[in-house]
């Protein structure tokens, strides 16, 4: 790559929050026509650096130069006028507007009499087509799209602004393999047009597939800038977490299989289903066992989890708990029966942003006790202290509003919220999405330990390797129905699950072919 002038140059950036130095003398360069990955653990300062560049945070020290000119970014509007666009980790769109309105928001095409909606929607369609999203109707409401497609809409939105710098903060965390490839095609095309792309992802494979260059941060400090080919994965991880490689290897050691007892199942459902969400499924969950739900995005993993928890009301089927018939139609009823669900959507269905870590953590316990029986402050503090220590929540300040914590630490607090309810059945929907290697390993270890203690655990992840590693038994879903149930252990790998899904798809094709032949004949 020619060493042209950097389009973005950040020199000696420091930012402090009360009690924390989030960034300490960090430098960062971004050249036109490159994909540059920003790497680091949760809380390393990646998000803070991005927010400094997008004008969300004011920098205490240092200088930001855009195309060689020192710029003061006093807000997101400043950053946008400097040609910097951002797609954030969590989808930041207006779900009550249409797709086209979201794409064109702020760039509507104006005619003589205000906004020319026809031209605007046409422009939106063109932008979507460039991304290979031509099948979307710009006049459809955004809320009807699955999260993954909303993400792609968010990216097309930033393309409308004709930016010179595109920041993608965890854009792939909710995409499946196909969608990631689609996104990468677009990223490469933009890069070849000379757009500078700042990419943040916790998936190392993706980082290596797309980046030209890496900058590593640790604890708010600059660790180094590397060309991707000069830093292999092991050394990258070691740089990120500041430990040597040998200790990392132990993280990968596979947990020994638990032996399932012959006891009757804790939870047993016969034919539970819900129209439009998931067709009827039988499922048994035993104490001391981790059951993985595997499948592609939209296969019905989350829908099944929500049904078990009563977040959505099942419209068919029967549920028994320890052999007794149970009605689980609301989350409150589920909690009363010691079932807990940690949602995949941490921002909208998990944390309550403006409450403190303590209040977030005790909320479910308190909800089960009812408002009239408040949990005494001393017990609250004991609970909070226990889980902050056990899960390693940083910073360990119970009274800090949870919105100020990094994603991984928010996830730990949520895990604490559910564990505090002393569940017998714990459903974890994407508990490791968008969090770094270190925190991920901590959560995985904790989940294994919980099952060893006799909890029934349901584990959902879009990373098949992770499901395989964690689970004693795997239920494979496709197109909102269960297609297989396999025992974990030797011989089961991510590939074998993909094979099951692919074979089922082939079966569908054959069946379709038969139908077509019958129709034509």
């Amino acid at each position: 790559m020619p060493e042209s002038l950097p389009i973005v140059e950040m020199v000696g950036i420091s930012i402090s929050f009360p009690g924390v130095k989030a960034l300490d003398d960090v430098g960062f360069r971004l050249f036109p026509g490159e994909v540059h990955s920003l790497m680091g653990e949760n809380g390393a300062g990646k998000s803070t650096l991005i927010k400094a560049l997008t004008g969300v945070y004011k920098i205490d020290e240092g200088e930001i130069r855009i195309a060689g000119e020192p710029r003061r970014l006093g807000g997101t509007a400043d950053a946008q006028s400097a040609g910097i666009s951002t797609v954030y980790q969590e989808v930041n769109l207006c779900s009550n507007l249409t797709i086209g309105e979201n794409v064109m928001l702020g760039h509507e095409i104006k005619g003589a009499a205000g906004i020319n909606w026809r031209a605007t929607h046409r422009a939106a369609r063109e932008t979507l087509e460039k991304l290979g999203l031509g099948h979307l109707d710009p006049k459809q409401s955004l809320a009807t799209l699955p999260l993954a497609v909303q993400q792609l809409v968010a990216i097309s939105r930033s393309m409308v602004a004709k930016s010179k710098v595109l920041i993608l903060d965890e854009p792939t965390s909710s995409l499946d393999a196909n969608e990631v490839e689609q996104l990468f095609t677009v990223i490469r095309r933009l890069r070849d047009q000379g757009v500078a792309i700042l990419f943040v992802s916790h998936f190392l494979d993706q980082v290596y597939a797309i980046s030209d260059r890496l900058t590593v941060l640790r604890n708010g400090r600059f660790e180094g800038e590397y060309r991707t080919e000069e830093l292999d994965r092991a050394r990258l991880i070691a740089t990120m977490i500041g430990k040597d490689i040998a200790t990392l290897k132990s993280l990968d050691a596979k947990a020994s299989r638990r032996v399932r007892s012959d006891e009757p199942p804790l939870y047993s459902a016969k034919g539970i289903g819900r129209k439009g969400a998931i067709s009827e499924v039988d499922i048994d969950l035993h104490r001391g066992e981790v059951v993985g739900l595997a499948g592609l995005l939209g296969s019905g993993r989350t829908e099944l989890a929500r049904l078990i928890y009563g977040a959505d009301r099942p419209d068919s089927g029967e549920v028994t708990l320890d052999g007794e018939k149970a009605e689980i139609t609301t989350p409150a009823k589920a909690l009363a029966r010691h079932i807990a669900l940690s949602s995949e959507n941490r921002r909208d269905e998990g944390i309550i942003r403006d409450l403190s870590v303590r209040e977030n953590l005790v909320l479910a316990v308190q909800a089960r006790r009812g408002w009239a029986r408040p949990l005494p402050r001393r017990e609250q503090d004991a609970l909070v202290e226990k889980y902050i220590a056990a899960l390693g929540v940083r910073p360990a300040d119970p009274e800090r509003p949870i919105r100020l914590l990094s994603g991984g630490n928010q996830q730990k607090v949520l895990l604490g919220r559910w564990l505090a309810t002393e569940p017998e059945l714990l459903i974890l929907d994407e508990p490791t999405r968008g969090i770094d290697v270190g925190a991920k390993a901590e959560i995985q270890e904790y989940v294994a330990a919980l099952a060893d203690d006799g909890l029934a655990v349901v584990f959902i992840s879009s990373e098949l390797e992770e499901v395989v590693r964690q689970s004693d038994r795997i239920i494979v879903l496709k197109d909102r129905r269960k297609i297989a149930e396999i025992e974990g252990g030797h011989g089961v790998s991510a590939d074998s699950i993909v094979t099951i899904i692919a074979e089922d798809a082939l079966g569908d094709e054959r069946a379709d072919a038969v139908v077509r032949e019958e129709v034509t004949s």
Partner: protein
Amino acid sequence: MSANARGPVEALKGLVRRQYFWGIVAVALLLLVNLVKDPGYLAVSIGPSGNLAGNVIDILRAAAPVILIAVGMCLVVATGGIDLSVGSVMVVAGAVSMEFLKDAPDTVGSTFTALALVIAVSAALGAVNGVLVSVVGLQPFISTLVIMLAGRGLAKVITGGQNTAATNETFRWIANGYVFGLPVVFLLALLVAVGVGLLVRRSALGLMLEAIGMDAKAARLAGVNRRALLFTVYIFGGVLAGFAGVFATASVMTVDVSRTGYQLELDAILAVVIGGTSLAGGKFNITGAVVGAILIATLDKTVVFLGVSSSATPAFKAIVIVALCLLQSERVRRVFRQRRAAGTARPAEREVVAA
């Protein structure tokens, strides 16, 4: 949160940081303006029967119904809702009690029967709001707007379009009587406010309501029984509005179907906002709502006292409230802070240069 561990200076600093601090300042300023016009304004005299009398006492008396509906409104707003029907519930409560007392004997028993009727009717109206919001899932604005419009009509039907008057000494005493030299209405309103304040903060009700107001979906998944809580809050708001209606009608023992409680829902919303509760829901402050209600009562009395022409009254009120909201806004305060910080920082810089 224990204040006793800290000195009075810290306690004062804490008060200044409160949003309703500016409400207190505004009350003081208004009283000061009145004092300038008439140096005897704040005088409180002791009547022959030991009862206090004076402008301040009048303000407290006038504040009582607003305090009641503001407290109810505060809880509703915390859940992210709004209750536009409180003024209409007041007039329905007034109409029901006057119609009943008109033909009832002038006894204590009749008073209690009237109050029971008021509770039943206002709870029923609150329940309609609650059902529309929590079960049907309508937006609170629309649901309560329906009751707001229907309520006044209902009151007219109950009284046959008349401004019904009645006599009942005990009922009248609620609005005009004194205990410990202070108006009964104010003491009752204060009692309710303190009771509700203790209830929400000592129990987990406050946390639950805030959770619903901040993020209804997340709260539901955390097992919070949103439906039941919303239902309860709207009923409670209705009952408080019913009592406010009793306060408003008992002082003259007449219900004025077109004036009683008219537009008081707006006063209640203002009081809540002045008290530092965001209309977006979430964190709420009962003390603030009480301060806001007292400010509104003070403002009403000041307008009359200064002789502002009745057509200009709403504008005068608006100016005071806009000024107050500006003072409370984070953005405006930040500008002031930066000014002050810049003013103190400069000398320090000079010292560094000198050294």
